[in-house]
């Protein structure tokens, strides 16, 4: 018997370079469940991929509709960008009663969406991280910064919450300039930001998109040499590419304290997936949650997922790390309770959103070194 899970990500379009790893990572969780062999008496989870395009709501909706009504997926791991996620949610998922767990739609607006209890996300809403980043700057006694954010709901929401928190602590934002992803030239933005000045440049973007381009341009012109970075900027590739220039820069990233992430890094690396990529961890967790919720509900159905996600994600119960899904199955089969920790220390609050813990890191000797957890 087969239970299909939709994996809807923007395989083409502006974040196409992130999505393959995200998809692989989600499928890694599913195959881990399958390999355990204990899932619902021989039901096999089959991922079905579809392209959300990240930007074309109509095409994304059509793709989701196809997955739901043709392929008969029971739950959706996705979508990625907040815009298409909202469209799929209200036009395909809610009407058909199919739950969605998005690994990367971080828009605060989705918290208020009319989701009928079907929408969850493993990425924290941006509202919280703004506060975290502001407090980090406070710790470092930095009072004047320039901000650049990627011009989408993630970046904008993040920048808003950061600005609110930072100004509350008495900090000054000299200029908050958005940048578009998928462009190559950021001279204009850097020119304006440099003129505005500031001790550090706060970069709230993606590490393989405009965020990197902005840092590159800032370094090239000597406009800034220290950067404070949001979660989207956390990646090894960035370190590798920019090398020593990033020395002394710092940032925050949602992080499971210790074990969970390490465990994930290990199994992901074994499977040939870049564990450090943006949202790969969240993707793994999203897929894992779907499987666990089904197991908990005792049947491979949409309703089981919707009803049990919160339950398996949160305490009480035994803590489950990546790579321990098989163990979780056994516990659940025996009627036990689990608290899925996963790669990102999943804790769903409110209507099913990740609460998120954050790691405050600094780049020293070409490595991310943890300063503290928040």
């Amino acid at each position, binding site marked *: 018997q087969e239970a299909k899970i939709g994996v809807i990500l923007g395989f*083409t*379009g*502006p974040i*196409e*370079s992130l999505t*393959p790893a995200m998809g692989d990572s989600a499928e890694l969780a599913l195959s881990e469940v399958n390999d355990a062999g204990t899932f619902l008496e021989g039901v096999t989870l089959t991922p079905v991929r579809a392209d959300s395009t990240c930007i074309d709501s109509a095409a994304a909706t059509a793709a989701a509709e196809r997955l739901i009504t043709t392929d008969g997926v029971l739950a959706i791991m996705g979508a990625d960008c907040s815009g298409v996620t909202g469209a799929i949610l209200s036009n395909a998922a809610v009407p058909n009663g199919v739950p969605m767990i998005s690994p990367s739609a971080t828009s605060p607006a989705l918290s208020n969406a009319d989701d009928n209890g079907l929408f969850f996300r493993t990425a924290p809403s941006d509202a919280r991280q703004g506060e975290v980043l502001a407090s980090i700057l406070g710790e470092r006694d930095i009072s004047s910064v320039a901000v650049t954010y990627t*011009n989408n709901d993630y970046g904008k929401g993040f920048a808003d919450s950061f600005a609110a928190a930072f100004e509350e602590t008495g900090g000054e934002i*000299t*200029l908050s*300039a*958005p*940048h578009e992803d*998928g*462009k*190559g*030239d950021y*001279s*204009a*933005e*850097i*020119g*304006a930001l*440099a*003129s*505005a*000045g500031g001790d550090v440049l706060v970069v709230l973007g993606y590490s*393989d998109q405009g965020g*990197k*381009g902005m840092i*590159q*341009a800032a370094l*090239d*012109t*000597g*406009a800034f040499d220290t950067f404070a970075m949001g979660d989207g900027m956390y990646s090894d*590739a960035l370190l590798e*590419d920019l090398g020593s220039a990033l020395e002394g820069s710092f940032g925050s990233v949602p992080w499971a304290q210790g074990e969970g992430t390490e465990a994930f890094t290990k199994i992901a690396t074994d499977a040939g997936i870049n564990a450090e990529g943006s949202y790969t961890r969240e993707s793994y967790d999203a897929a894992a949650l779907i499987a666990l919720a089904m197991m908990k509900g005792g049947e491979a159905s949409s309703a089981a997922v919707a009803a049990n996600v919160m339950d398996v994600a949160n305490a009480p119960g035994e803590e489950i790390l990546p790579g321990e899904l098989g163990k979780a199955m056994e516990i659940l089969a025996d009627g036990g309770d689990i608290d899925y920790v996963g790669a990102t220390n999943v804790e769903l609050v409110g209507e099913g959103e990740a609460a998120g813990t954050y790691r405050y890191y600094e780049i020293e000797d070409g490595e991310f070194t943890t300063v503290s957890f928040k």
Partner: protein
Amino acid sequence: MDFLNALVALSNFVLIPAIAYGSQLALGALGVTLIYGILRFSNFAHGDTMAIGTMVTILATWGLQAMGVSLGPLPTALLAIPAGIAGAALLVLLTDRFVYRFYREQKAKPVILVIVSMGVMFIYNGVTRFIIGPDDQRFADGERFIINARQFKEMTGLDEGLALKSTQGITLITAVIVVALLFWFLNHTRTGKSMRAYSDNEDLALLSGINPERVVMVTWLIVAALATVAGTLYGLDKSFKPFTYFQLLLPIFASAIVGGLGSPLGAIAGGFIIAFSEVGITYAWKKVLSYMLPESLEPSGLVQLMSTDYKFAVSFVILIIVLLFRPTGLFKGKSV
């Protein structure tokens, strides 16, 4: 001193980046304009041709790097460009043979070719992603800077730094050389003149004994070379990602149109106009002004005409204004 500081700040953040970006756009626009002039359609696949040329260059660069070849302070990619050009040329020639030629022989109207080129764009796009994937690829090596901001400050004792990347230098030099070569070729060689003749009047070119297929082939070869060079320079200066090349199409077209489609000089001017208006209008003049003005007059705000959100929009407004005042285009193109 203050004046020098102001000048340096302006050069660092406006002049140098705009010149480099302008050269890259100009090289791209030259390719578009050549196809428009000689093959008579707006080639939407040009951005992706650039991507493919660059992709081959990158693969060759990796090969060279693996073999331990290097150009010292210069990027190895410069050595690999010929391979990229060859790859792009092969591809466009094949495309021409199997796609465009049919419509040319049928005397299809240019608009059909435009839509066909969109189809080709989709295909190139798929091919690039298929071969090299959608990710960011870095292939620059060698010295990154001719002079960086810190060195400059130390050298001159000024408060403002001036950075000049080697890729910017290379871009500008290459652009000048390529443009000069192209002009010389079009205006002084037999083949170049035959291309202009063909562009002017196809039937009469035939009557003068010019072989149209040869003209077409040479055009594609030049376009492939221009696209590869432009794409590689762009990739060296920023980084290579297929999607950005697709996005580059819009400013490239804007450059070509504002300069007067079909006019090579216009393409160059257009590239610089777009680049300067993108970078210049949204520049916050605070820094420059605070150096220039006495302290009492120092601006409190940023003195930014428009926020950078509108950089692309602003450049378009400028284009429209330019066209309103120069109704024949900057350099009279093929337009009526």
